[in-house]
């Protein structure tokens, strides 16, 4: 399989998640992805021209479309055009080309764009449409209005389940999940299915051998273990159950589509297991004890910093490096 083929496979694998997002939150994500993709190609072509590189082989590798699609999936639907444009610019130019383009970026470009937006525009970045069943879902016209003329758009927004969990004041977990409308079967209404859909896409990528199981399993196990420890029998101090954490926010999207970016992760299988596990721990700590609604982007960037260090200590044992035992002779 070629590099372009890998990128196309990843794009196809986002489909279940994108469909679930669209079903539960409306067509906002689709508008983001479509316009974001066009902008990304334009920025990529511009950067290549400035860097004196021939644009065609690079534009055909689909890598910039993966970056823009992943960023646009992470952005709130019904984001204004300038938010999307700023994010794509940050991802493609600051996240990728200033380091030398594909293969040379130390950080996940989509997460670079996301974090720049989250720090610069916290209000826009934490405003989420209410899911289907809890509020009216805008149509395509509404999505375009929100995108082009945000001042005239008025959507139904709602705190996400992770927000509700963080702001919990004294309710037992069971009561919180029963009383707050945001909670569904196992986690948030809509969110749980979005996570399951990304899990399906991710498992398909595993089946297609695009990446190995190490980083995603490391993340999910570590997050589950942390949540189990912090569950506190579901008391009012509880950090939430493992199931809640697995199916909330960007967990599955992060586990299968973000931390599996090979360029910015650790290289060996053992290294990727550790890389994923540490991201899982950080996600839990930031979600439960930090100040931001979700934690995947920060956790990923922090571990991108650490990846070369992890590599240093996780070189696999090469053939012939085992000491020869006496009875072998």
């Amino acid at each position, binding site marked *: 399989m070629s*590099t372009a083929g890998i990128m196309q496979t990843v794009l196809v694998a986002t489909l279940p998640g994108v469909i679930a997002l669209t079903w539960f939150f409306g067509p906002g994500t689709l508008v983001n992805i479509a316009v974001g993709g066009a902008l990304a190609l334009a920025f990529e072509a511009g950067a290549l021209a400035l860097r004196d590189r021939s644009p065609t*082989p690079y534009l055909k*590798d689909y890598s910039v479309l993966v970056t823009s699609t992943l960023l646009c999936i992470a952005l709130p639907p019904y984001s204004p055009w300038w938010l999307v444009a700023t994010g794509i610019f940050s991802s493609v130019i600051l996240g990728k080309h200033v380091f030398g*383009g*594909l*293969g040379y970026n130390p950080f996940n470009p989509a997460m670079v764009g996301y974090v720049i937006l989250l720090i610069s525009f916290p209000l826009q970045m934490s405003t989420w449409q209410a899911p289907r069943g809890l509020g009216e879902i805008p149509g395509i016209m509404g999505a375009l209005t929100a995108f082009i003329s945000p001042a005239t758009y008025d959507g139904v927004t709602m705190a996400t389940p992770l927000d509700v969990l963080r702001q919990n004041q004294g309710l037992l977990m069971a009561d919180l999940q029963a009383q707050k409308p945001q909670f569904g079967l196992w986690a948030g209404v809509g969110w749980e299915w979005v996570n399951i859909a990304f899990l399906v896409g991710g498992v398909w990528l595993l089946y297609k051998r695009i990446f190995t199981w190490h980083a995603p399993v490391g993340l999910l196990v570590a997050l589950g273990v942390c949540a189990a420890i912090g569950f506190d029998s579901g008391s009012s101090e509880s950090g939430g159950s493992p199931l809640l954490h697995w199916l909330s926010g960007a967990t599955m999207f992060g586990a299968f589509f973000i931390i599996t970016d090979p*360029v910015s992760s650790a290289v060996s299988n053992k290294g990727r297991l550790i890389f994923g596990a540490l991201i899982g721990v950080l996600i839990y700590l930031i979600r439960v004890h930090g100040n931001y609604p979700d934690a995947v982007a920060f956790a990923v960037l922090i571990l991108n910093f650490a990846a070369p260090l992890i*590599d240093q200590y996780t070189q696999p044992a*090469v053939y012939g*490096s085992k000491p020869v035992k006496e009875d072998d002779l």
Partner: protein
Amino acid sequence: MRSAHAIHGGIHPDEAKALAAPGKLLDAGIPDKLVLPLSQHIGRQPEAVVAVGEAVKGGQLLALAESPMSVSLHAPTSGIVTAIEDRPVPHPSGMTNLCIELQCDGEDDWLTFTGISNWRATDRTKLIEAISGAGIAGMGGAGFPTAVKLNGSPGQSIDTLIINGTECEPYISSDDTLMQIDAPSIVAGAEILAYIVGAKEILFAVEDNKPTALTAMHDAVAASESECQRDVMTFPTKYPSGGEKQLIEILTGKQVPSGGLPAHLGIVCQNPGTAVAVHAAILEGKPLTERIVTLTGEALGKPGNYRVRLGTPISHLLAVTEFDPSNNRRLIHGGPMMGFALENSDVPVIKTTNCVLVPTEQELPTPPPAQACIRCGHCAEACPASLLPQQLYWYARAKDQEQLEKHHLFDCIECGACSWVCPSHIPLVQYYRAAKGSIIDARAEKIRSDRSRERFEARQERVERELAAREAQRAARRAAAQKKADTDADDDPIAAAIARAKAKKQAADEAPSAVPDADS
């Protein structure tokens, strides 16, 4: 019955072996001319013992090995030596080397040979001499002088002989063919090899994609007597199971220590072709002058396994196999994984030529230009040595020799599995070969500079020592002279008188000064 062990990595490329119809041996005939490079092996070049214009018979010695790391060369047919000069030889660099050109007379008139029928009663050094004299070098690929391998190093005992009939590289079926048509000679040759190295056990290794060869080997083993424990082992097809180190792990579960040889585990590996050549050399006294070459690829009208005389120009083979040049861009010596492209078809077949691959452009397209490495890690999954090829590539490009060695560059067997899986079509092995070359150069350079520094320091020290010695001598002479002067002065009344007068004059000179001199 032993069971096979699994190895890390490996790939399953399209085998494409059926194209050459393994098991059927065709004859490539006698060309007009043979071009015989003196060096067809790793090691030193033998000395030519024939002159231009000399008529030679088949099997006659053409070049004599004068050092143990060299291998003799014999005439593959009768004819006249028409030139001894540099000609292009099969090598990735397209280099030339000293070759003997033989104009074949078509008579194919051979010397008669005498073998050693009772080899079990013969001293092993005599047998090794006979093998060396027959010009045998490893026929599996590297071309290491067989006699050197059999000699071993002192203090190392060999328990196991492995006959490596794995032949895991796509397209190639020369060993497969040999096993199908002449398994008894392989088994008999292995018996001789085992006797020479003192092995108590012989393992015949055949990949499971060669069922006919496997049956033939089983039958040959069953039909023969042996003083060794023998086993014909088969295991799932995977490239590069036939790599010496990989095969040893598959068969025994042991790994050859990094930087070491199979002999460190008490193992010696030989190719079936080598076993047959040894068999012929010992029992018949016949030198190595021909081999089986797989001539294959869709650009050939008559692909197949051919019996080819060493020195046969590849252009002759292309004619025999009805080569269609219209849709071919590459001529590959060896297989698609580890072979190398030849610049033209003038080069001859040598002892290590197991395959000449002549593909059409559709069959094996010229690789597209390399793209950026996305560190996907597919190469690390495929690497049979458990290396991190993506990191090696990174450091090779950065010319970071320290990190390259830390990441075990020298454990790379250059099998090409990483390049084969690379989605960005990066010719990784080429980077590793270049990096190995520059590290070896740097080491040699360091040794050279260390030596010249030592020489310089030694010289410096010697010069200083000599200076000091001269200085000491001078000082001694001066001291002696001084002493002599002193004693002379004491004895001489005239000198004493002068000294007294001088002292008196000095005192008179100083008296008038009003202020006594501070320094007086």
